[in-house]
């Protein structure tokens, strides 16, 4: 049970990263590798602020601001200086590696005995249940784990809801169109470059928020933690799209959150069965490759299973 709660918590935290990737990769068609740097930036900023005695909320806001700044730089490199998408991302990601080391001062910051976002929730749970480890379905749960889970759930649901409402506004609609058809939005009076920069800022802010929560959950911030994160985001999006198929914005957002959780569950199970953790990124990359070369490939697999069920 603790394993499942752990996978869910991890899934909810990384869902923020997936939502960020959803904005860049799907909404404005920008393959943004900045993600690998900005998730670490979020973790680095929040880790440093927490060990220096700042409140978790301040740390969270600072992380978001840092991520937004990183995304803005990538956007400006691409739109203003006409550097190709991938290269803009790579430049910022590479630069962020040094920035992150500077911010942290060393390559790893352990976060023991600091006040995190979930602490108030944990106290509230304790007073509510009267124990530090409530039983759920007959399983004893660590109060701390449950608190982190609930905090992540709250933040993820809140962010998902805000994002959903935002993308349905006049502004959000124009932002989505800017990625699909820049010529059209220009003819409608919108500068697509501004929209690209803004989308990347929002996207990387979400990624940094994810990094901030991840550092608090894992109990450390590490300069290497961002490697391959963008591909994880893509994998989650692909799984999410296979889960919910086509639909509106709300459906897509829900799908991505569910997809990330499912992806983490699959990983947890695979690791439990003895998969070498070192192979994780290889397997993820192959999975994303397969999904990209086979259009609707995941859909077909799902369809196959559904068809099989019907026949049985």
């Amino acid at each position, binding site marked *: 049970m603790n394993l499942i709660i752990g996978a869910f918590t991890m899934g909810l935290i990384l869902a923020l990263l997936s939502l960020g990737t959803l904005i860049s990769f799907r909404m404005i068609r920008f393959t943004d590798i900045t993600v690998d740097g900005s998730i670490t930036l979020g973790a680095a900023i929040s880790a440093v602020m927490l060990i220096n005695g700042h409140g978790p909320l301040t740390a969270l806001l600072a992380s978001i601001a840092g991520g937004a700044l990183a995304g803005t730089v990538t956007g400006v490199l691409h739109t203003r200086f006409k550097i190709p998408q991938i290269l803009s991302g790579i430049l910022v990601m590479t630069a962020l590696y040094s920035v992150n080391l500077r911010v942290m001062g060393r390559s790893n910051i352990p976060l023991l005995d600091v006040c995190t976002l979930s602490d108030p929730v944990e106290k509230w749970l304790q007073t509510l249940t009267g124990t530090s480890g409530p039983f759920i379905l007959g399983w004893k749960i660590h109060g701390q784990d449950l608190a982190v889970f609930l905090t992540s759930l709250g933040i993820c649901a809140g962010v998902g809801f805000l994002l959903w409402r935002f993308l349905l*506004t006049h502004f*959000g*609609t*124009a932002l989505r*169109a800017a990625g*699909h*058809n820049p010529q059209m*939005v220009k*003819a409608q009076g919108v*500068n697509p470059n501004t929209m690209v920069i803004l989308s990347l800022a929002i996207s990387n802010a979400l990624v940094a928020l994810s990094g901030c929560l991840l550092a608090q959950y894992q109990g450390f911030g590490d300069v290497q933690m961002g490697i391959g994160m963008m591909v994880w985001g893509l994998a989650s999006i692909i799984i999410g799209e296979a889960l919910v198929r086509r639909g509106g914005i709300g459906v897509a957002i829900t799908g991505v959150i569910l997809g990330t959780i499912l992806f983490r569950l699959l990983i947890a199970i695979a690791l439990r069965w003895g998969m070498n953790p070192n192979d994780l990124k290889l397997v993820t990359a192959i999975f994303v490759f397969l999904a990209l070369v086979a259009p609707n490939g995941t859909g077909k697999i799902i369809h196959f299973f559904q068809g099989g069920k019907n026949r049985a």
Partner: protein
Amino acid sequence: MAQEKSSTFSREEKTVLDIQNLSQTFFPKTPNSVQALQGVSLHIEKESFTAIIGTNGSGKSTLLNAVAGTFLSDQGRILLDGHDITRWPEHRRAFLIGRVFQNPFAGTAAEMTLAENLAIAMRRGQKRPLSTALSKKVRQEMTEKVASLKMSLENRLDNPIGTLSGGQRQALTLLMATWLRPRLLLLDEHTAALDPKSAAQVAELTRQIIRSERLTALMVTHSMQQSVELPDRIVMMHKGKIVEDYEGERKGRVRIPDLMAAFDRVRQRELFDASVAEMVAMQYI
């Protein structure tokens, strides 16, 4: 200074679009250098419908794109509705200009729904606030307007616009370009990529909208028939210059053979010029 400015505008009270001595060279100082526009001046009157015709490479599309702001011209000025828009970027001009493109896929976002596309057009060139784009009231308005196209698209407002045919998308693009009354409507061969039936349908719709909304329109076309039937003025371009201008009564009398003859005249004059140049070169150099 201010007096001078106001006098310029009052003199041209009826002029909406004033193109002054516009020149544009693509790839300057290279072997591929093209003088696409060579000092073009054109006045477009309020509530008039002008067609620009010409052969490939005559500069007609370049002229339209110069007005739309796809590029900023090397020389000359463009005044639109009292604004000097010569240096305005493309997206800023959308405040005054509605556009329909040749490619039926260019004017709409394929993966977004009809309603979402229309919602974007409802705020062409305006501020886009953080309020819900598709309120009930807005949807009601959309249903009515889309129903007026008589293409039974009003029940498909929530379908992706990419599921529609080229003709349907072009009709919707036209609706989007004119949802907020534009000071100038630019039509860039907007029926050229459609099958004959859809082309006729969109041409008829164009005529209706321009007439009922009393719009000022500038249309580039390849179709002689369209240029004779739809607009009330025909401007013929050749090699970056305006070579013929049929207006008023003269436009009323012009028929397709007249236009063909005019094309031939222009070409003959050019051939003559070329052969004279060759002769001169042979004899004197």
